[in-house]
């Protein structure tokens, strides 16, 4: 912090320049991609980046691995769709309503489930998400297994499909969806950065490291986990609404299935849990790969993508537990003139003995 403020103004941090270039590239992307199928993959990348980023607040910072985030996503999609198709409520409001419903749901289930530690929490989230899936699958009022169609926005005079901001629908091309998805990614990322630097972020990391030690320092562990799951659920739901408006059709299979929950977690884990850039990097790498393999393998190899996900999780946890971001850091330190990595234990002990023996004497004298 102090070095940054002491630096002369003209030296703009290199990371800012990189960020600016990246922003420009992303804004120009729809102009370059042109074809709808390629733009579709780009939009999916953004959707998963945002979902993984939302997952990261709970799974990455607080270390509570959820394999049920699709339930929040689905609740968001269903809430706005029900409001729109039954009462003509704009999806923008539906988005907020979905976020609220998902956050309340998350707190209600979080209260008991957070008493479970480690793997049991993850298993419980799978079970709860499956329950939600089953309920929606059997609930006729919301379409049951056949799902719900989102009312198509048409020009009143000509009856042709049209763009409508009120209906959050763009039927003349996918580019607006791309920009909205991009805005959502930016929104969730900004929230993540704020969380990262705030008391909440510090507390969540402490909880991930050692809950009892955190309690002994005055951290109300359950309260902060509930805050984390509420934020995570709310943003997952917002993205759910967007996704419903993008597909214009939802059913439990597309919005709540287990594979979706697993993929969300996997994107974050591949990129690097607990880092701001990790989920974004993970989505940029994994989603195009997943989409392309799915297109190649077609309908015949329905479960092959799942096998690949499983294999990826095993490989990451064995060889690269810190994900791609860990890999990037390692490479950077290898290439750099002097390693800025934290010293190894031996270096630390060797260097500290001398100054520390006198350290306290100085303090007193």
């Amino acid at each position, binding site marked *: 912090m102090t070095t940054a403020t002491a630096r002369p103004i003209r030296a703009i941090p290199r990371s800012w320049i990189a960020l600016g270039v990246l922003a420009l590239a992303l804004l120009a992307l729809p102009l370059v991609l042109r074809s709808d199928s390629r733009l579709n993959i780009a939009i999916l990348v953004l959707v998963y980046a945002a979902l993984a980023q939302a997952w990261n607040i709970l799974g990455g910072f607080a270390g509570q691995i959820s394999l049920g985030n699709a339930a929040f996503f689905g609740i968001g999609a269903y809430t706005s769709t029900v409001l729109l198709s039954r009462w003509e409520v704009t999806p923008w409001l539906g988005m907020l309503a979905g976020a609220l419903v998902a956050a309340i749901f998350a707190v209600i289930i979080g209260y008991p489930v957070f008493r479970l530690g480690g793997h049991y929490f993850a298993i419980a989230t799978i079970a709860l998400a499956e329950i939600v899936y089953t309920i929606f699958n059997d609930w006729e009022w919301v379409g049951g297994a056949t799902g719900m169609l989102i009312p198509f926005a048409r020009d009143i005079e000509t009856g042709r499909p049209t763009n409508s901001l009120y209906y959050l629908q763009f039927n003349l091309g996918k580019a607006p969806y791309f920009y909205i998805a991009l805005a959502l990614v930016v929104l969730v990322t900004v929230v993540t950065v704020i969380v990262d630097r705030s008391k909440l972020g510090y507390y969540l990391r402490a909880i991930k490291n050692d809950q009892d030690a955190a309690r002994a320092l005055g951290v109300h562990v359950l309260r902060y986990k509930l805050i984390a799951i509420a934020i995570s659920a709310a943003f997952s739901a917002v993205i759910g609404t967007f996704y419903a408006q993008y597909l214009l059709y939802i059913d439990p299979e597309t919005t709540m299935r287990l594979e979706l929950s697993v993929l969300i977690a996997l994107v974050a884990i591949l990129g690097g849990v607990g880092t701001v850039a990790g989920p974004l990097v993970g989505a940029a790498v994994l989603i195009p790969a997943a989409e392309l393999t799915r297109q190649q393998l077609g309908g015949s190899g329905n479960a092959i993508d799942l096998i690949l996900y499983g294999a990826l999780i095993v490989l990451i946890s064995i060889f690269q537990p810190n994900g791609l971001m860990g890999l990037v850091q390692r490479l950077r330190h290898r290439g750099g003139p002097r390693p800025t990595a934290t010293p190894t234990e031996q270096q630390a002990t060797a260097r500290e003995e001398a100054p520390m023996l006198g350290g306290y004497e*100085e303090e007193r004298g």
Partner: protein
Amino acid sequence: MALLELDAITKRFGGLVANHEVTFQVDRGEIVGLIGPNGAGKTTLFNCISGFFPPTSGTVRFDGTDVTGWPAERLVHQGMVRTFQVVRTFPDLTVRENVMIGAFARTNSASTARKIADEMLEFTGLAPRADVLGANLPIAQKKRVELARALATGPQLLMLDEVMAGLTPAERVQAVELIRAIRARGITVLLVEHVMEVVMPISDRVIVLDSGRKIAEGPPQAIVENPEVIAAYLGEKYRPRREETGEG
């Protein structure tokens, strides 16, 4: 003025009585040592006081308030903080961040927390290590981090569970100095210790537990001469020799 008052604290685990009607008090500004042989119930009593589990019966009063059964996180905000026998440094956080977690008990602002943390790092001699990850510290420094982050919560009562265990004699001397300096800041200290020679010179008063009961209480000198304590804590073989030198 009593800061901490224990009244007939009993803790049972099924049929096992870990603490039996332990009663004592700690006055403001005191350094009190709590000693006893292995399995005497020191750490259990510590956990009962600091809110890691509720006592089976009895009451704990802190600063005039009945805090029996309060959870640890609530007690911290009341001004009572503890450290752990087996250090629990947050491994993925830097030393400064470790201490900031403690400081957040007093503030919601990250920059204020950082300021408090830096002051505590200075006080405990950890300032040069501020940016090292918790996982990469040697044991003596991990113990200092525990102290620093407990102090960062702004306690009235600091409870130390075997801070000296695992330290070299030279490190122990430093730790003793540090505890004295903490008291000089107006903080009351209750320390559970196994190492007798550490407790005796710094404690104003010593409380001895054996098999879950309080068997003696008093100034260090009286405790080392108490035959019951010698027998229970130091072993039977010390009894005759002590009596000879003491009375002869």
